[in-house]
């Protein structure tokens, strides 16, 4: 989602996020040229949709906890599902170099991501049909 200042033909820049606490969200954008401001207001359902994507408008202020959306989103969580943090990952090779098959998979994924980065085409144009919806 982008906002274009029609007077200046400039992309408006994110300036501020406000969370009133009632499930709504306010995001303020400013035109870098004429300084005109506008506010994006979302209702609770729209706010939830953004939250479900695992993103925060304006960027994250604190790093996300592993499985944060799962933990925070469950309505009936098992309280004792997680043990206290440990200082290591039980030696399961998390720092090892990727294997060849994984590198190939990763390269294919990166190609897919680059298309998104450049925004030159719709991600759904992937020849194998994998749209990301991003």
């Amino acid at each position, binding site marked *: 989602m982008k906002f274009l200042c029609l007077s200046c033909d400039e992309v408006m820049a994110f300036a501020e996020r406000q969370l009133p606490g009632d499930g709504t969200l306010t995001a303020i954008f400013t035109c870098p040229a004429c300084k005109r401001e506008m506010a994006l207001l979302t209702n609770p359902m729209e706010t939830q949709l953004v939250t479900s994507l695992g993103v925060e408008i304006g960027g994250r202020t604190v790093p996300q906890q592993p499985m944060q959306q799962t933990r925070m989103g*469950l309505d009936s969580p098992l309280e004792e599902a997680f043990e206290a943090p440990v200082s290591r990952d039980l030696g399961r090779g998390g720092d090892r170099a990727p294997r060849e098959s994984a590198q190939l998979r*990763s390269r294919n994924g990166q190609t897919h991501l680059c298309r998104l*980065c450049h925004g030159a085409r719709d991600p759904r144009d992937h020849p*194998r049909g994998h749209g990301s919806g991003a």
Partner: protein
Amino acid sequence: VDGTETDIDGEAAGESRKVRGYAEVSHETGSELLEQVLGQRARVSARLGTIGAIVAIASGKGGVGKSAVTANLAVSLSRRGARVGVLDADLNGPSLGRMLGLLGSRLVDGPSGVVPPAGAAGVLGISTELLLREDAPLRWKGPHADRFVWLGVTEAAVLREFLSDVVWGELDYLLVDIPPGTDKIGRFLDLVPDPAGVLVVTTPSEVALSVVSRSVAMLREAGVESIGVVGNMSGYASPGAVQPLPLFSGDGIRRLTESTGLELWAEIPFDPGMGARTDGGEPPGGSDDSLFGKAFQALADRVERGVGGREAAP
């Protein structure tokens, strides 16, 4: 809107002006939404970098025994020395926590993610069954009105976290049990576009045939190259039987392989005793020379040859 300049009607009839479209303007809005989404994808790729082969077990049809096939295949591969993880993508109807003997196990917060518990035959597993209170249905916090708008996005995010935030470590195989519905196959392929293989589970039932055929078509459209058919409940195996007895009147397994040209990787008979062991958290896999055991030995052989998880190991 076609992504290029857009006509906007002016106030006076017949007037219009050109406005740059989405693809024509910079992504640098400062909202960092796309950057965050790309970061999520990058974390999935990084996490899966130490996995030899990701194998999906899918069908499109419910009730054909995907989860039981997944659990028994995982145990079979693990007993052969492979390092195996199982991801239960059936968020709303999870059963692999129970089948792999993981119930009561706890997830451990580590510095680089959540360490999954090990169950039957040392198979690692993650399932919403480990996260939910017993008998609680899967429900997500959020506004109740128009829940359908955000529910699918939320579940896709959870599946992404199961891939990216779980410390799978170095595995030969990660088996992913895909829930019923061809849309769920698509959701998985969005996250893992290039699985090493997909096992399509069906039964002799004619009803299953029509649904599973659609799933095969979807997988082929997505470019999945290695697809094997697993004919589950292909017969009834009573204890000590040499040959399985007919269980269904249909001939859907044979017709599926003929109509799709896919290879039948295994036919698995229904064995009540083996089923009970699987439900009890001790899937036997290919541990003995029963008809059921031989079927899983054959399937594990075929998976090792077909998707190369262990062969790819350094």
